[in-house]
């Protein structure tokens, strides 16, 4: 669960995931409440995207042996991570101030999906003891993300000038791509150790 929270914080702090858009809308409409009005649909869109991937992984896990799913998740994460590493600057294109809340949720869903947000949680879901917890993972993750986004948005809106924000803006897209690769690597290690563990057991049986 801590990992789900940490990933929620991590996703929340990425400006491309939504808080920057919320700050912008508040500045544009000269209304601080816009921060929170925007963050809710953004969180919903993100949560739906993550839940979709988590559901697929959880379903696969309940029907298939865990080891091939581990390898599969590792391969997808590594491949997607390398792709993002090479094309970290790609984003979905136009979105405007005229977005309705539903469109804002769709925007967030597309952003989260194209960034592989849910994928990052796949290894975590595979390590869960029961299917029930998968829903908890999504909820905890989303709550952590919402709180982080709200914190970042309020901080930047109230305390930072845009000029200061520009100086502190780290290349989150690159960090993100590296995280995908790292999650893939960890998943692969887990799969390998599990394979070794099994072959070790086979060896013992043979002796």
């Amino acid at each position: 669960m801590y990992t789900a929270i940490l990933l929620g914080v991590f996703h929340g702090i990425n400006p491309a995931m939504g808080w920057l858009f919320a700050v912008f809308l508040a500045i544009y409409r000269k209304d601080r409440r816009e921060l929170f009005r925007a963050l809710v649909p953004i969180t919903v869109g993100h949560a739906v995207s993550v839940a979709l991937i988590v559901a697929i992984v959880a379903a696969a896990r309940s029907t298939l042996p865990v080891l091939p799913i581990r390898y599969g998740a590792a391969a997808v994460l590594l491949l997607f991570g390398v792709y993002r590493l090479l094309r970290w600057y790609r984003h979905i294109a136009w979105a405007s101030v005229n977005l309705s809340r539903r469109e804002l949720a769709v925007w967030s869903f597309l952003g989260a999906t194209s960034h592989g947000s849910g994928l990052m949680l796949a290894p975590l879901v595979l390590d869960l003891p029961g299917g029930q917890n998968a829903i908890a993972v999504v909820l905890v993750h989303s709550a952590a993300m919402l709180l982080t986004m709200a914190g970042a948005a309020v901080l930047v809106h109230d305390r930072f000038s845009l000029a200061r924000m520009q100086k502190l803006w780290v290349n989150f897209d690159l960090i993100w791509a590296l995280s995908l690769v790292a999650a893939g690597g960890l998943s692969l290690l887990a799969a390998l150790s599990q394979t070794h563990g099994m072959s070790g057991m086979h060896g013992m049986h043979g002796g």
Partner: protein
Amino acid sequence: MTKFLGTDPTFYPSAQAAMEAPPERLAYVALVKPDGLAVVDVDPESPSYSRVVGHLAMPASAEEDELHHFGWNACSSALCPMAPHPHLERRYLIVPGLRSSRIYIVDTKADPRNLKIVKTIEPEELMRRTGYSRPHTIHCGPAGIYVSALGAAGSDEGPGGIFMLEHETFQPLGRFEVDRGSQYLGYDFWWHILHDVVVTSEWGIPRHFENGLDVNALVAKQFGHKLHFFDARSRKHIQEVDLGDDYQMTLELRPAHDPTKLYGFVGVVTNVTNLASSIWVWYRENGSFKVKKVIEIAAQPAAAADLPAILQPFGAVPPLVTDIGLSLDDRFLYASCWGTGELHQYDVSDPFAPKLTAVVQLGGVISRTPHPSGERIGGGPQMLEISRDGRRVYVTNSLYSSWDDQFYPEGIPGALIKLDAHPNGGLTIDPRFHVSFGDARSHQVRLEGGDSSTDSFCFPG
């Protein structure tokens, strides 16, 4: 070309921030005959102020490139919150050849005074991937680099349109329009970035302008007289606005820099009934776009004997407004009258009621006003660029090689001239700033760190 911490300091969240940033120290000028890019020192503190401090000659090729307009790979739109690309850098100039359909990608960072071509998009590749030819205006946008084109691939006809280049690899990505509707002619384009609106203007088909102005086509009103509006998200044509076919050649588009505003200015070269130039405002009312003529500049009568052959039948010099510019505070609009040799400045605080605040004479078909330094000026004020702070205006004097020869048969020695703009209106030519490019002609100017026609801002104020 990627930064890890902090964004490029020349990306400005708002027009206000761009005005307050440090002023430009270098200007890049497109040269024609022969094709090249000149680097001019515009830092008054520098010992080489007002001199050419660098020159990039384009590689010799069978046909002329005719460098014309050009722009940056990335700009302030990278800070737009819906699709931030904060770690791009304003580093490469995207320099199309209007005649050759070749595009050069030029690095300004390795050594800002010693430009280097890092990539060339050959005409065949451009046409194959986009279906267009004669690339013209460059704008750095939220999803890539947008380029307008005047002709169809491998043809002297239309349709012209817009295509895109990939942000990092500069690979041509194909055409922008999903549905072009009634749009056929191309020229300039820009957008209301927060409102998902792209606006395009019309010059003519290459057959009517490439080998000189086709006067018969002009008299027959075959040049463009419309604006087109596209939805930027669906890339579909949503509306055309016709100025009326007496108005020929709707060229430069200058939308308000304030992203909350939904209006802009378009310059019209001539009216076939009286040779006047005009400037119109487009604006949105009740969900649809409308236009209104707000400035008209009359032709000046002249004796046929004093006129070049192309103008003799008309007995007048048309103003030929061929470039306009809008200061970043949306307060002053400038218009180049390339025929009569004048630069006009208007206060457009109320865009529907412009006030003429200055007229400066330079060159001109009849007046031939010299520079205050005594230098002869061939041609007249043409491409103009306003510094971000709005205090300086740079102008060059060539329009388009084959048209130059028709209107100024005695030749146009390329020049870059600087004017000082007074904060509350008024213009003075800087007598100490006259950059000569010899026999080469000069066209568009770009300023270090962006200028008043390069950047789109998402944050208001």
